């Protein structure tokens, strides 16, 4: 992906481009911007690894204890890593005015917001899911649980990005929104945490995880239907207010 093919956000409202094009262009733009700042891209991953390193130091290095705690630890740490990255989801675009352009464009803006959320998931949730087995090894998880760990984190973190986008959109206009953002969002993350960590726990015991994955999928479907809409309403308010 080269920079010269980068479509500018302002070109959206010159003509009503087809939806698919606008959606993909927004994703591509966000990905390009993110990839230009690799260190920022790596921050949530480093944070994730660091938190996981802290737990054995704080609790105990005994493998059977760690194995017992691992699903919860991995999920809570991944959740915090996603939370940490949320503030940047709309912040830059809000400050340079791109967000206003996006909301003014002729395409339905909730779809473009969904594109931004997708880009966020591709650069945060998905890498976290791929990194999780490595940290699972350090927490003495059996290798048989790795597919479930990856799958739940990939599915669940998409929901986390969607729900988190609402909070990020509500607080983007505030100067010190960081702590407030976590207060707003963490209670809403609880169902995803319960089903995600529960599935990994089942996978360690060798049980069937499909029902849990289905529940996570249901949460994702509900989030896909409602979250972009709510986030767009919140963005309009932040931009106008």
């Amino acid at each position, binding site marked *: 992906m080269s920079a010269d093919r980068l479509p500018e956000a302002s070109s959206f409202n010159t003509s009503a481009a087809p939806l698919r094009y606008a959606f993909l262009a927004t994703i591509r733009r966000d990905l390009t911007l993110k990839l230009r700042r690799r260190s920022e891209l790596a921050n949530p991953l480093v944070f994730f690894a660091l938190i996981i390193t802290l737990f054995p130091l704080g609790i105990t290095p005994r493998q059977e204890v760690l194995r017992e705690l691992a699903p919860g630890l991995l999920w809570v740490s991944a959740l915090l890593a996603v939370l940490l990255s949320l503030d940047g989801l709309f912040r830059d675009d809000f400050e340079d005015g791109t967000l206003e352009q996006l909301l003014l464009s002729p395409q339905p803006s909730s779809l473009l917001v969904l594109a931004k959320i997708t880009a966020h998931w591709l650069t945060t949730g998905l890498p976290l899911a791929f990194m999780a087995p490595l940290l699972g090894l350090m927490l003495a998880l059996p290798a048989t649980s790795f597919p479930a760990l990856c799958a739940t984190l990939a599915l669940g973190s998409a929901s986390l990005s969607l729900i988190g986008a*609402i909070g990020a959109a*509500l*607080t983007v*206009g*505030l100067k010190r*929104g960081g702590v*407030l953002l976590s*207060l*707003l969002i*963490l*209670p*809403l993350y*609880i*169902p995803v945490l*319960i*089903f995600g960590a*529960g599935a990994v726990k089942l996978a360690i015991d060798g049980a069937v995880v499909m029902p849990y994955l289905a529940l996570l999928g249901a*949460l994702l479907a*509900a989030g896909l239907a*409602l979250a972009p809409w*709510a986030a767009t*309403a*919140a963005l309009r*308010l*932040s931009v*106008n*207010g």
Partner: protein
Amino acid sequence: MWQIVHKLGSPKWFYRVSGPWLPWLWSLSVVLLVIGTVWGLAFAPADYQQGDSFRIIYVHVPAAILAQSCFALLAICAVIFLVWRIKLADMAATVAAPFGAAMTFVALFTGSVWGIPTWGTWWVWDARLTSMLILLFLYLGIIALRGAFTSRDSGSRAASILALVGVINLPIIKYSVNWWNTLHQPATFSLTRQPAMPAEMWLPLLVMVLGFYMFFAATVTFRTRNEILRRESRTRWVRELAEKTH
């Protein structure tokens, strides 16, 4: 039809009409609360299993019910405010949120005090108590978000959006917490058992619940009127009112 709606939404009209109702609401709530207190504390029979510690139910359950009703009210007000831009609904939501948070705290406190004689500890990760705790965080989030905006209208709209997101999530949270609870610790002894409570036990409870509801109506109406005074303090009718009362 629309004229009626807009008249109902007019703060001045509401202030005038709600005034005569207030003494009735206050006295009704006090009467109900006094009857319920005496009945529940002194006359209702003790539970055959939990003994007199069971009497905590008469404040725990009404507070828990109010905590949830109050969130429903927040969501209804949010819809009315976001769709029809009726400011009165937002004023009610502004004052209902701290009330709901207070009720949630009371439900949590009485629940955990009740936990000592029943479970032997202050806190058990019981499904209901955990959902209540999450509800408290939701309330605190809504209150904090409203306060974080410098513009009142932005704060109102943000709090309304969050209240709607919260009310959609609340059933999911409750369901998932129940699921988690049954997985981790099979329900041994629930605080509020459903099976056949005799009338001498549930009648005082009903009186207390009604008393709490009346108190809720009175407080929210009263503080909505305060909110009207605050937001309309530059209008002529409020100035005249302030001069008349002092």
